[in-house]
């Protein structure tokens, strides 16, 4: 295991301290590092709260700030946060309009956020994201995972909250964006949880994990390493099959690196994915490219497609000022 760390036990706290110091203008760290909170709250606005296991940086703490999240609760690496973290974060950001939880669909996350919702006295609603089409036959199971599409839900719901949308409407909006959003990923190299010290799986030099999640968990199937075009075909193909957007639709294309894949490759994937979408009569009208929803030091990429309408475009374009996403005023 080759990592820039001082010891597996302190990775999370040291990294959070560095993060909070580097972005002190935007956010602050709660007591005992239970949450990261937007420095200046907007009274009367619904509090937007997300969280999950760490190891996916910049998700979620990197999206705390104006136009996006009010707070994020970082769990241990790949382990959902605990109810006390969520309860205290909710308390810290509730200015009276209630709190919306944005939760990725993992049973750990769902249960911990649910317990927190039960235990806090506040008005709370939850959006559970489940955009990962790699999970097949999901009907009678835990369902699909929430992966990179979560970022899109957080951005758009964040923009709507910023302009005063009330809790119930935000929940409905979040559910709707989630319904319009699909993702799928592939890993070229596995990741190593610091405390585990060894990779979650191993891949031969000519293998990749197709349909991988963001926790170093194995994917749909292990296949031969393929070209960027072939990978994009499979990912975009699976997404479009499931999403079935109307021909002529405009979409947001998110090409997301898993942590160890450089930008030169991600932009190359943008090129492949865009061409494939065009072939299907779909226009990528917005793009986001970078390592935003990662899996520690895993190499690989996920593609997310989110169908845009006029409102979604406006919400995407609306100003955002966080550690990891910034545009507009």
């Amino acid at each position: 295991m080759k990592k820039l760390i001082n010891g597996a036990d302190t990775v999370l706290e040291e990294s959070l301290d560095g993060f909070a110091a580097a972005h002190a203008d935007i956010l602050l760290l709660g007591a005992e590092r239970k949450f990261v909170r937007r420095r200046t709250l907007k009274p009367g606005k619904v509090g937007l709260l997300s969280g999950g296991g760490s190891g996916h940086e910049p998700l979620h703490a990197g999206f705390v700030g104006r136009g996006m999240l009010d707070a994020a609760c970082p769990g241990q690496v790949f382990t959902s946060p605990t109810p006390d973290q969520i309860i205290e974060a909710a308390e810290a950001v509730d200015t009276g309009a209630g709190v919306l939880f944005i939760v990725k669909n993992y049973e750990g996350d769902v249960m911990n956020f649910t317990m927190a919702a039960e235990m806090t006295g506040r008005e709370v609603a939850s959006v559970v994201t489940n955009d990962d089409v790699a999970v097949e036959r999901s009907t009678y199971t835990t369902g699909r995972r929430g992966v990179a599409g979560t970022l899109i839900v957080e951005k758009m719901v964040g923009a709507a909250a910023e302009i005063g949308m009330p809790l119930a409407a935000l929940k409905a909006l979040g559910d709707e964006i989630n319904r319009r959003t699909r993702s799928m990923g592939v890993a070229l190299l596995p990741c190593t949880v610091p405390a585990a010290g060894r990779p979650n799986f191993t891949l031969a030099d000519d293998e990749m994990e197709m349909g991988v999640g963001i926790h170093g968990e194995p994917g749909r199937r292990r296949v031969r390493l393929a070209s960027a075009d072939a990978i994009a075909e499979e990912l975009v193909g699976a997404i479009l099959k499931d999403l079935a957007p109307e021909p002529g639709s405009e979409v947001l294309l998110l090409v997301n690196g898993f942590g160890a894949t450089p930008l030169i490759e991600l932009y190359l994937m943008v090129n492949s994915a865009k061409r494939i979408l065009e072939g299907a009569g779909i226009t990528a009208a917005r793009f986001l490219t970078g390592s935003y929803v990662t899996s520690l030091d895993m190499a690989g990429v996920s593609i997310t497609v989110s169908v845009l309408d006029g409102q979604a475009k406006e919400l995407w374009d609306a100003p955002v000022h966080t550690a990891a996403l910034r545009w507009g005023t």
Partner: protein
Amino acid sequence: MSLDRAAREKLVRALAASMIEHAEELTSLDQAIGDGDHGLNMKRGFEAVLATLPGLADKSLPEMLKSIGMTLVMKVGGASGPLVGTFFMELGKALPEAPARADLVAATDQAINAVKTRGRSEAGQKTLLDVLVPVQGVLAGGGDAGAIAAEAAQAADRTTPMLATRGRASFLGERSIGHMDPGSRSASLLISAAVAALEFEAIS
């Protein structure tokens, strides 16, 4: 069964020791069909429980169990935190201070139901319920310590050929087959540690 302070402390230490000692193994199991943190999660949780000693053992058995459950909920995170935590909390709520065997049967039944509700799950889905449910059956049927521990171990083994439909392993579909469920293994370890520590024979 009435546990004195020493017995309560012994029980807590035995449970914690079983998780701390087997953390590596549980993590390996979770690496195969999960995200590789189950051993770390259970270890962190039971280390936090240990840190509440000696005060913890001063409490009555029900209060102690509730406290263990709450500590697990607040320290473990992941799927196992709420589930194992709920199990202990509900057990504490349901047990009288000096439970008879019938109380234990009823309380474990209630705790298992709470786990099912929390996890929206049933036995047969390759989760810790596949240990809890059959072991509770043996308990209800009058099985002795040996039978309980044996059933726990065998039940965990029986999860190996199962297809996961709940929990993180369900994301793998068919690929979840052929690996033991990590939560079932930890449940089995906790049960074995408990019956050994309680000298179950004597108290039933």
